[in-house]
C-alpha cells in the first residue's frame, strides 16, 4: 500500500481513532524524556545536543517549535524536581566523595 491512496471503505486499512494531540501532549512527551535522561545521569549540554539533533525527532520537534530558551527552561524545571546533575566534565560529581 506504499503508493496507493487511502480508501476509507477498505476494511483492512487503518482504523482511525481520535487521540489527544497538539502542544500539551508534545510538552508532556518532552518533559518525560528530559526526566528520563536526567535520571540516568545526563547533563544539560548532553540533553541540549539531543534536542538539537534532527535525527531524534521527539526532542528536535520541541526544540524547533519552542526555541532554545524554552528548552533550557524545561530542562531547568525538570532538574529542579529531580535534583542536581550527575555529570561534571570527565569525573564523578564531588570527586566521588560522600557515597555510602
Amino acid at each position, binding site marked *: *500500500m506504499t503508493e496507493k491512496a487511502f480508501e476509507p471503505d477498505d476494511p483492512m486499512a487503518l482504523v482511525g481513532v481520535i487521540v489527544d494531540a497538539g502542544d500539551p501532549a508534545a510538552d*508532556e512527551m518532552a518533559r*518525560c524524556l528530559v526526566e528520563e535522561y536526567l535520571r*540516568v*545521569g545526563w547533563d544539560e549540554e548532553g540533553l541540549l545536543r*539531543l534536542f538539537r539533533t534532527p535525527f531524534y*525527532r521527539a526532542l528536535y520537534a520541541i526544540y524547533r517549535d519552542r526555541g532554545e530558551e524554552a528548552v533550557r527552561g524545561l530542562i531547568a524545571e525538570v532538574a529542579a524536581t529531580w535534583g542536581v546533575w550527575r555529570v561534571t566534565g570527565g569525573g564523578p560529581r564531588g570527586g566521588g566523595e560522600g557515597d*555510602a
Partner: protein
Amino acid sequence: MPEVYNWHLGRKMAYRFAERHPRWQFAAVFNINRCIGCQTCTMACKSTWTHARGQEYMWWNNVETKPYGGYPQFWDVKTLELLEQADPGGQRWNPRTRDGRDAPYGVYEGKTLFEAAPAGEEALGYLPTDEEWRAPNIYEDTPTAYPTAPGRYHRTGEQLPEHRTWFFHLQRLCNHCTYPACLAACPRQAIYKRPEDGIVLIDQRRCRGYRKCVEACPYKKPMFNAYTRVSEKCIACYPRIEGRDPLHPGAPIEARCMAACVGKIRLQGLVRIDADGRWAEDRQHPLYFLVHVARVALPLYPQFGTQPNVYYIPPRWVPRPYLRQMFGPGVDRAIAAYTAPSRELLAVLQLFRTTQRMIFRYRIEPGRKVFETTLNGKKWAMYNDTVIGLDQRGREVVRLTVEEPVFARPRQHLNSI
C-alpha cells in the same frame, strides 16, 4: 481442544496442545520511556542473522514508531480488527479480579486469537502482503506518500508534512511466547519450544514453507524465505544464551539486540518456570521483580492469548486508552509505580544494559539519602544505594550506585580506545 492456564489473562483458554512448560524461559523487559529509536538493536540483529539471500526484507528485531508505524505495516491494527470482527466488543477486562501471580491484571473476558479461530484453523490471523513487508519504517516520519520510480527522487521530499503529536518507539522481536500461535498453526509440527530455555525455533528440515506460522503469529515475527522456501524467525541468539560465545565461555549472555542497546533500555535474562507454567517465585531476580513485584513491565497485547515473554515499561506521556489496549489494564498502576519509583525500583533500573552477562539475582546495599522532593503531591526521597548483579552461580558481575557517575569522553578523544 485442551485448556491451558494463561496468567496474563487470569484464566484458562483453549490451545492446540496440552500444557508442558520449559524449566527456564527466555524473557526481557524493555523500557520504552528511554528509547530514542537509534535502531542499533535492529542493525545488530540484521548484521548477525539476516544478511543472506532471501532475507533481505527480514528484520527479526525492528523498532517502529507508534502510533503510525508497523512492520509489517498495520500488523497490530489488522489483528485487533480481526479480533473485533470475530468477537464484537469482546476485548474487555475485569480488573476487579486481580489475584497475585495467577491473575495480576485481572481476568480477560473476551476471546483470544485461538478461541476466535475460524473452523479448521488453529488461530485467527492473516498473511501480510509483500508491500506491507517492504518498508519497515514507512510513514513514520511523514504522513503521506509520494510516487517514486527507480532512479527518481521527489524534489521536495524533505518538505513533506510531519506527524505533529506524541509518539513513541516500540521495540519488537519474537516474544518466544508461552503459547506460540506459530507453533500451534504449523501443520508439520516443525516449530518447537526448547525445554531448557523456552526459545521457540523452526526446524528448517521439517518446514515446508506453508506459511501458516506467518499467518497465525499476531506479532508477525516468523518470516518466509522465498529463496530457501522455508520460514525463519528470531532464534534469541541461542548460542549466546547457551554460553557458547567465546567472550564468556560457559556463561549465558544476552542476545545481540539486547547487548547492543545504547539507550540502556533493555534487560534480558532467563526466569525459572514452575511446573504449572507460572514464573517461579524468585524475589531477587530483576525480571521477576519488574514484572511481578513492582509490576512496571507489561506484556504486549496480552488479549491475543499467546502469553508473550517480552515485557514493556509503557511510555508515560501516551493517552491511557491507547496504552490500555496495547498493554492491558495494568498500565495505570505501572505508570504510577514508574513515575515515582520505589527505592528498590530505582536501584534495579540501574541494571539495564550494564553487562552482557545475564543477571540472575541482585542485592542492594543501602546508601545515604541524597535528595528529597515532592512527586505528585507526595514526599519522595532518593538514596544512593548500591545494586549488585549476580550471575547464575551467584558471582558478582556488575556493581553500580543509583547516583552512578557518568564519565563524558573529551571531545578530542570521542573515538579513542
